[in-house]
Structure formats: structure tokens, C-alpha cells
């Protein structure tokens, strides 16, 4: 009797119970120790970006001419710069600028690049040729040179840095998304959607776009590191944030005159940039191994 009852119960039970995609991703990502650690670091930075100004021990703008160019001490953890401003406070406050500039520029680039890439791969033909040849033109310029040219036209300032960095992100996103679109549109379920008369927009964004997301997430994290460097470089060259803002790149630029006498002025923001870029790249590597196992490098 018991035997038959269990059989009846099993009749409608689905054979394999798998994790939901999100849960599966989380389990696999936890295994990537370095990437997980790096993402904890970035999470900390994001928190600092929000609360930085209120936890900073000193006013980042307030000069203290009695304590210029001091090395790290118990009073000023990371030392002071040429005007006696506390470097630790400036780095904490600058986190917000660095993260928002890099993330927003990459996100803008990703959105525009994704739309262009999907259309290019999906429709093909002359639209594809125009979009891809224009990206080739953009690729012909070194990234930073292009950014400098754009900022030179628009004028210096953080908003223009965001525009410049997003502009040179667009072609790489377009190319990436185009290639995964070409692969995704061969799926039978795309053909099925066509056969039931789904409009192009629906096919592109409901059926093809989700197939490109995993590669996109990986690339976004990788690009953020690059965007931080680009934005800092522009600030270093005096094309980004104005010198008094506690932007990490601008701080590097300010400190370069004292490299021989008070190297910590350059070192501290340099280390901050280094660690942040490294963390984003490590997350990118980990995400790639989890989401995109095909391209895993041994």
C-alpha cells in the first residue's frame, strides 16, 4: 500500500529540481575567493561613498598652514598635503567622486553600446555596416587621446569627463553585444518568436538581450577599472575635477611637485586608485569565470 502511494505522489513531481539562476550564480560566486573578497572591498567603498563626508575626521577643504606636508602620524593618519589638508579625509570624500564618475560613465556607455550592438547584430545589413565601421573609426584612436580631445572640445569639468569616458566606452560595448547577439539570434526560441509574429523590439529585448547579459556584466566591471584610470588621468592632466576638489586624480596632480620631499602626498591617492582598480578587475575575472565559462583563461 505504501509503495503505491509514493508512486502516485511522484507522478507530477518534476524530475530535477535545479537552483534558480540567481541562487546558482550566488553559490558559484562565493567559491571565487579573491573576487568575493574584492567585492566586499568595493561594497565598503560604496558605503564610504555615501557616508564619507560625515565620517571624515577633518574638513577636506579646510587648509591648515601650520601642518603642511606632514607625513602619516596619529593626528593625520595618512599625512597632510601642501595646504595642510588631511589626506585621509580627502580620500574618503573623494571616493564618491571616483565611483560616481567611473560607474556612470561606464553605465552610459554600456546602455548606448548595448542598444547599438543589438540592433547591429539583429538587423545586419547596412545598419550593421554603419555602426561597426563607425566603431572601427573610434577604435583607431587611443582611448585617452579621444577622451582628451572630447574634453578639449567641451571644456574641463567632471560632467564632461563622464561624457568623454562614456563615448569611448560605446564602441567596445557595441562590438561585444553585437557578437553575442549574432550567437543568440540563432536560437530556436528566437525563430519561434518570429514565427508567432513578435515585433522586432520584443525579440531584441525580451529574447536576445537576456542572452547577452552575462557577458555584459563581466565587461562592465572590467571597464569600471579602466574608467577610474581614465577619469583620474584626465584630472591629473587638469582636464577633469578642479584642483581643490578631493578627486583622487587631482590629488595626484597636486602632489607631483613634492614627489621627492613628501612622497606620501602622491602615494596615498595612488594606492587608493590602485586598490580600487585592482578590486574591480578581480571581480570582473571572478564574474567571468562564473557567468561566462567559455572564455575562462587557464
Amino acid at each position: 500500500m505504501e509503495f503505491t502511494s509514493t508512486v502516485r505522489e511522484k507522478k507530477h513531481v518534476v524530475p530535477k529540481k535545479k537552483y534558480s539562476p540567481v541562487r546558482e550564480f550566488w553559490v558559484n560566486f562565493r567559491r571565487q575567493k579573491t573576487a568575493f573578497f574584492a567585492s566586499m572591498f568595493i561594497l565598503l567603498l560604496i558605503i564610504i561613498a555615501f557616508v564619507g563626508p560625515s565620517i571624515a575626521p577633518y574638513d577636506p577643504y579646510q587648509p591648515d598652514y601650520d601642518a603642511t606636508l606632514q607625513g602619516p602620524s596619529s593626528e593625520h593618519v595618512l599625512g597632510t598635503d601642501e595646504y595642510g589638508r588631511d589626506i585621509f579625509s580627502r580620500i574618503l570624500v573623494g571616493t564618491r567622486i571616483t565611483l560616481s564618475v567611473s560607474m556612470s560613465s561606464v553605465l552610459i556607455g554600456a546602455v548606448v553600446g548595448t542598444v547599438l550592438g543589438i540592433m547591429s547584430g539583429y538587423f545586419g545589413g547596412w545598419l550593421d555596416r554603419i555602426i561597426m565601421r563607425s566603431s572601427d573609426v573610434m577604435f583607431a584612436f587611443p582611448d585617452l587621446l579621444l577622451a582628451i580631445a572630447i574634453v578639449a572640445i567641451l571644456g574641463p569639468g567632471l560632467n564632461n569627463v563622464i561624457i568623454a569616458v562614456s563615448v569611448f566606452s560605446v564602441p567596445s560595448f557595441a562590438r561585444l553585444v553585437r557578437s553575442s547577439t549574432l550567437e543568440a539570434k540563432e536560437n530556436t526560441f528566437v525563430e519561434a518568436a518570429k514565427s508567432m509574429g513578435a515585433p522586432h523590439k520584443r525579440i531584441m529585448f525580451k529574447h536576445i538581450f537576456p542572452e547577452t547579459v552575462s557577458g555584459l556584466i563581466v565587461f562592465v566591471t572590467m571597464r569600471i577599472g579602466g574608467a577610474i584610470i581614465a577619469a583620474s588621468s584626465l584630472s591629473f592632466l587638469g582636464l577633469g575635477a578642479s584642483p581643490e576638489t578631493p578627486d583622487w586624480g587631482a590629488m595626484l596632480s597636486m602632489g607631483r611637485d613634492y614627489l621627492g620631499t613628501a612622497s606620501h602626498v602622491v602615494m596615498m591617492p595612488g594606492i587608493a586608485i590602485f586598490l580600487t582598480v585592482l578590486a574591480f578587475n578581480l571581480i570582473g575575472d571572478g564574474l567571468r569565470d562564473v557567468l561566462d565559462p567559455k572564455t575562462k583563461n587557464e
Partner: protein
Amino acid sequence: MSNKLLKVTGIRKSFDIPSGVFGRKKTLKAVNDVSFEIMEGQTFSLVGESGCGKSSTGRLVSRLLTPSDGEIWIDGEEISQKKESQLKKMRQKVQMIFQDPYASLNPRMKVRDIIAEPLLIHTKLSKLEQQRLVSEILKVVGLNESHADRYAHEFSGGQRQRIGIARALIMKPRLIIADEPVSALDVSIQSQILNLLKDLQSEYNITYLFISHDLSVVEHISDYIGVMYLGTIVESGPKDAIFSDPQHPYTKALLSSVPVPDPTFRKERIILKGDLPSPMNPPTGCPFHTRCPVSMEVCKTIEPKVTQVALDNHFVSCHLMSS
């Protein structure tokens, strides 16, 4: 019942194959002058080996491909050259079932949304109304309400194909094009799906264009059969006529390859010599003459005409018949 739902006359489809920078462009004739018609509520099967153009024919009828030539009449409407924007009506009347139930369902959508997708595209029903229809159709195909909130990867092959059928059925289509709907399934599941298709046909008066390479499957489900070889229909007719009295040498060879479940039975197998010729470079005359066991001189130069065999609606393209 005697209403012609689908009438296809002389459709052709060729693909251009680029061959290097300096090479001459080659054309692949996938479908070459194919004509057939299906009465409402009946099943017409296209059979043939892989690469013979049967799937391409299905895709032409469903207008996933545009024919280079010929006419396609569905329910009194000519659709062969219409633009996508003019096909809205036809897209509701004609639905497809695909071979691979693993690939034809979007892995990121819930079963509920997969089945409701045609409704979302073609109707303005409310979410609630859509879901009511989905639950209804799930029962019809032998699944139940509790399956609706799962993803396709949680199901077995047979269940997935039921989901595919439910999706095709929800618009209450007149014609369903089934492209090898059971060849990816286990034999035991195949018969369940075939019986489901037959039941649905008698209940909703659906017409099937059934594409398969498996003759035993075709024998089970068809009313009419068209045998395809290198992009052309070499023989077509009622199922019984094709199976009991095949006329074309290719049909004979094809039928002799069907295994008989009787170990003591020794039947004569006709083994075809040589390979399937490349459709990029098809033979002159009768396309089958390079492998035909009874080929004659005339076959090499002159294309055979379609001739009617004694029985009604039984047609064959072979010089043996026309002489």
C-alpha cells in the same frame, strides 16, 4: 472538410553561397518547384532524408523564409511575398512546433509567459484573462496549473514538447507546421505526443503540415504524404497508396529501409548507391538518376513530368510512369 486550407504552387528557394573573393557565387537550390495542397483538418507529411529541403519548405510556408518564386495560399490569402507587417493575420492562423524542445523555449521565461506570448502579441486581453486561457490550455495538453510557474529547464523532453504544443495551440490556429516534433524524443514519449497531436486535430479541426524523416511516425499521423528528394517532391499521394503501392524508385528504397519488428521476416532491402548529390550542383535531368537502380538514358537529360497514377491524388515524377 473539402476546403483547401493550404495550397502551395511551384515555390522555390535558393540561397547564395559566397565562395571566396574571386570564386563564382554558387546558389544552393533548397526548394525547387514544390507544389502541394492540404484539405482542412487533414495532415500532410513531408518526408525525406536530411538536406532534402523539407524543413525549408516548412519555413517558407510559415514565412520565416521568403520564397524566391511561387505562390502560397493560406485560407484563401496569398502570402508568399507579403511583408512582415502584412502578415499579422496569418501569424495568428499559422503556428509552429519545433524539433528541439530544449532550444525552442526561452530558458529565462516561465512556462506561463512562454505560452501566453502569442496572446500578448496578438490580443489585448488582460493579464487575468490571459492566465485563464493558459491554465485551460495546460490541461488540454496534459500538464497542470502547478507547472505554469516553473522554467522550461525543469521539465523532461516530452513535457517541454507539450509546452511547445500549448504555445502553438493558444491562438486556436487553423494550420500548425510541425517540424520534426517528435524526433528529439524517446520512442515511448513519441507515441504520447503523436496521439496528443491527433486528439487535438479531431477536437479543434486543426490542419497539420508535418515534417519528418521517420516513416513509422509519418504512417501513424498522416492523411497525405509527399516524398521529397533534393528539393523536389518526387511522389505524393494518400498515405495508404504511398505505403502499399509506392511508384517512385526513391519511395520504394525509402520504404524498404523501415525496420519490421519481426526477426524471422526477411525482406528485400533496396540499398541506394552513392551519396546524396550536392544541392549546389544538382544532377541534370531527373535529380534521382545518379542513385536510381532503374535509371534510363532519358533520365540523365530530361526532367520527368508530374504524372497522375491510377488512384486519385497520387502523383509521381518519374519517366517510368510517364512512358
